[in-house]
Structures are given as C-alpha cells and as structure tokens.
C-alpha cells in the first residue's frame, strides 16, 4: 500500500518535470507519436513478409516482439534515466540524501525517474503480446498463458537484477558510466528467439547471461514447450537473481559509506 503511494508520488513528480518546459513537452509528444507510427509501420513490414522464423509461428513471433518491447520499455523508461540520475548522484554527492531517506534505497534508485512519454510503448507491448497470444490461441492453453505471464515477470526481474548489479559496481569503481551500455548490449541478444543461435551461444545466453530467460523462455512457456521442472527452475532463477542483486546493492552501499568522503 505504502509502496503504491510512493510510486504514485514519483509518477506525479515525473509528470510535473516532464511538463516543466513547454517547448520541450510539445517536441516530446510529437517525437513520440512519430516514433510510435514508425514502430507500427516496421511491424507491418516484418509481418507482411515473414510467417515464421526458427520454427516459430507468426503469433508467437508477435508475442516475442511484445515481450522484447516490454523489456525495452523498462530499459528506456526506467533503467536509462535512473542510471543517469544514479551516476550523477554519485558524482555530486546527492546519493547521501538518498541513503538517509527512510525507504528502501534500491526502490528509490529504481523509480525516482520515469520517462513518462514511453507509456505508449508499454501499451503497444501489451497489445502485441495479447494479439500474439490470440493468433497462436489454438495451440495454447490458459495454463500456458499463466506460466507465460509468470515467466515474463520473472524475466523482467532478472534483467532488473542484472542492472542493479551493474550500477552497484559504481560503488567500487567510482566512475563506471558504461554500466547501462553493457546491459543494453547483452539485451540486444534477446531480440531473436534463443533457438536461432548455435548451441554453445545459446548456453551462454541462457545460463551465463540470463537475458534469453527474460524474452525467449516466456514464449516457450506459451507454446507449451517447457515442462514443470524447467518452469520452476526459471522462476527460481528470477527469485535468486533478485536476492543476489539486493545483496550486491547492500554491499555496494557499505562500500560507499566506507570509502567516500
């Protein structure tokens, strides 16, 4: 309950900040409308020419794109702006104020900035996922859809955790502005179903860098390709990575308080 209140307070402040400069606001709205039109156009081009890729049907591909876009929106709307703010707060010392606030510092660092214009992307991603599921509807069950949702959430958590670990490294390195670039590079590997990669790369992508878990695995669940053991395993990976990330974050904070002046 309190978390929701805090989220809505952050959201309001971000809307206020987004509306602070008129010209900037107008340009942003136009730019994002154009961007949305372009995205829809390119989707149209892809799907008027392709019906399957790596053994995946058109409905599944649409849903995969939706999941990919969902993750991408998380990157653009939350992770990028908050990384920028985080790096800056380390440099100018305002991190001190964040640490002394009586709320979970990881939460504060995650949600203090939101690119609110990307709300359209979120809608588009969800539409794509729903449409995708509908098209492949005859081959899926409601249990598959449920596991798909669960694994999508778990996948998002894995990427989020990876981000937390990467920004936490800043506490040790002091200057580590490339932290998100690395994450983005890893994430781009998830744009295509993991099955199009050779086996060795697939293993790396699935286990070493669990990005595939975030995008491809939910889709496999939707197709009913995963057995219960693997589903549970992937959910466990999600929970474990979150726990590891919070540990690393805490250690980072401790390091910060040990070294900074």
């Amino acid at each position: 309950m309190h978390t929701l209140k805090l989220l809505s307070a952050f959201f309001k402040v971000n809307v206020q900040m987004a509306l602070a400069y008129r010209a900037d606001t107008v340009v942003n709205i136009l730019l994002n409308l154009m961007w949305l039109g372009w995205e829809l156009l390119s989707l149209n081009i892809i799907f008027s020419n392709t019906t399957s890729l790596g053994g995946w049907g058109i409905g599944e591909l649409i849903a995969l794109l939706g999941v990919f876009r969902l993750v991408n929106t998380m990157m653009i709307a939350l992770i990028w702006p908050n990384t920028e703010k985080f790096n800056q707060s380390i440099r100018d010392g305002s991190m001190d104020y964040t640490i002394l606030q009586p709320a979970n510092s990881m939460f504060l660092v995650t949600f203090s900035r939101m690119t609110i214009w990307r709300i359209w992307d979120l809608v588009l991603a969800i539409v794509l996922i729903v449409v995708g599921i509908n098209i492949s509807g005859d081959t899926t069950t409601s249990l598959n859809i449920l596991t798909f949702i669960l694994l999508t959430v778990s996948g998002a958590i894995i990427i989020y955790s990876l981000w937390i670990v990467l920004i936490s490294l800043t506490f040790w390195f002091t200057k580590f502005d490339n932290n998100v670039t690395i994450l983005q590079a890893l994430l781009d590997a998830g744009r295509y179903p993991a099955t199009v990669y050779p086996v060795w790369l697939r293993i790396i992508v699935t286990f070493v860098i669990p990005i595939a878990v975030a995008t491809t695995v939910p889709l496999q669940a939707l197709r009913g390709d995963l057995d219960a053991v693997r589903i549970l395993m992937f959910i466990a990976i999600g929970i474990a990575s979150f726990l590891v990330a919070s540990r690393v974050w805490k250690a980072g904070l401790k390091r910060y308080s040990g070294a900074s002046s």
Partner: protein
Amino acid sequence: MSPITIHAENLSKTYQVPEREGGFGAAVQSFFKRKYNDVKAVQQVNFEIEQGEVVGFLGPNGAGKTTTLKMLSGLLHPTEGTANVLGFTPWELKPEYLRSMTLVMGQRNRLSWDIPAADSFLLNQAIYRLPDDEYKETYKELDELLELEPLMKKPVRNLSLGERMKCEIAAGLLHRPKVLFLDEPTIGLDITGQARIREFLREYNKRTGATILLTSHYMADVTALCERIIIIHHGQLKYDGGIADLSRKIAPFKLIGVRLAEVDSHDLTKYGTPVQNEEDWEKQYIQVKAEDVTRVTSGLLADLPIHDITITDPPIEDVIERAFNE
C-alpha cells in the same frame, strides 16, 4: 540535566587516498600500480551532546568536521570507535533513526531543479509517510518562520541562493526531526540571508527543543547560535566548551574601542596595542589584557575627551587562529 542525544566515543576515520606524482609517466604507472596513502581524517574524537543543545562545530577546511558529521548522521562507517544518536547506531541506518534525524548540506541539493519546491515536498511527505494533517501543520509552522509561501510557486531553478536554501532546510525538516545535522547551512549567502537562517534555527530550536549540531565557516553563525562549540583541527578535538570560556582560556584579552572628540590627535599606544577593526572605522581599538581592563578604561576616561567607549571580546576568528597555531 537533559538526556544525552549524541554520544561519540573514540570516533576515528582513516581514508585511503590514491596518490601519484604529476605528469604523464606517473599517470600510466599509477594505472598499473596504485599507491595509497592513509589520511587520518578524524582521530579519537569524544563528546556528548544533550537534548536541545545547539553546538557549533568549528575548524578550518579539511579539519574533519564534515567527516564527523557524516559518521554521526550514518553515511560513513568509522574506522574505529562508536557513536550513538538518539539511542541508535547511526550507520545501521534504521528507518526509525532516519525518520528522527536530518542532514542538510549547504552545498548539495535535494530539491528537483525543474519543479517548484512544493512538489518535491509532497514527494518527501510520501517517503517519510507523513499523514496529511501532520504534514500541513508542520508546513504551516515552517512557513511562519521562513516565509516559504511566495517561494513555493516558482521552479527551484528560478529561486535565489538564499531562497533555495530556505526551501532546502524546510525540505529537511518536514518530518520534524529531533536531531539536525547542518553542514555549512549558510554557505554563499549574503549577510541578511545568513542572519535569516540563523534567526530561524534559533527559533526552531526554542520551539521544538531539537538538538542542533552545525558546522560553519562564518563565525557569526556560531557566536549567534551556539553557547557551546567544539573545535576540531587535523582530525583531533581541540576544544569543547563555551564560547566565553574559550576566549578566556586562550585569549585573555579584551578590545577597548574609543571614539574621541578629535580623531588622530592622541596616541593610544601607551594604553595598549592598537588593532584594526574593519567593521568600525569610527572608533580606535586597542587590545589589553583582561585583568588590565578596569585600570586602562579609567585611565582613558580620565585622560582623554571620550565620546563613546566599548569593551568587547576579540573576534572569534582570531581566538581560534591562536588555538590552532599552538
């Protein structure tokens, strides 16, 4: 005696600072093999502060004031020693502790630049979980003392430095903290701005009984606000006590200022050492030993056509300078 709010025992902090010679070769060498130097920022500092006290923390730049303040607020783990604030160990960062203290740093911003401070205040309300009525009441009180209302409608970037500082301080007090750590709260402000903040802190302390520990470069802040000062130099505690005591202890001198009927016509050197006072050109000042004040004053009054005479303590800057050079 009031209960002890802040307690520091053997508080010490040593930093490891990378070190290298200037020049290109040294920079490359330092990349592969880094040398560290131990800097003892704070060494074995002990003090206790009672509830409701306003204590000034003085010392030159790099003396360890900010480091001590950061340890007491919980931002830094000490290398050695312990501290207790309101019954908590600060660096454990317990939410109950964070809700009852505040740290305001004159050189850092917590308010968002692009939006009016009122919006940032509401965010603080959410973070500190303040009920609406309580928040409004506190805001009203702060508004009364700081005249915030006219500042609340402008984006923070459009405020003057003094106005912004008022808002920054108010933002740090919305949750009614019992302990205030203020690091240079008047830095960069003009004389009236400084006086306003000072006046506010005095009144706030009187009304709420909050404990205040502040560092400042401006001696006027300290002399106006604090009955007790702690002097720290090279990381070590040099003095802890009243301002008057300090002057008596290390500078048993008084300043006698006289305004004469005819300026420059009398030589005052036979009464005491002449000193310049830049704030008051009308008077001529001499410095005399504290025990000689009565004798010299009556001598002056008997010998010279005096319009006005004052007896004051020497400026605290001089007093502290003397202590540091010991």
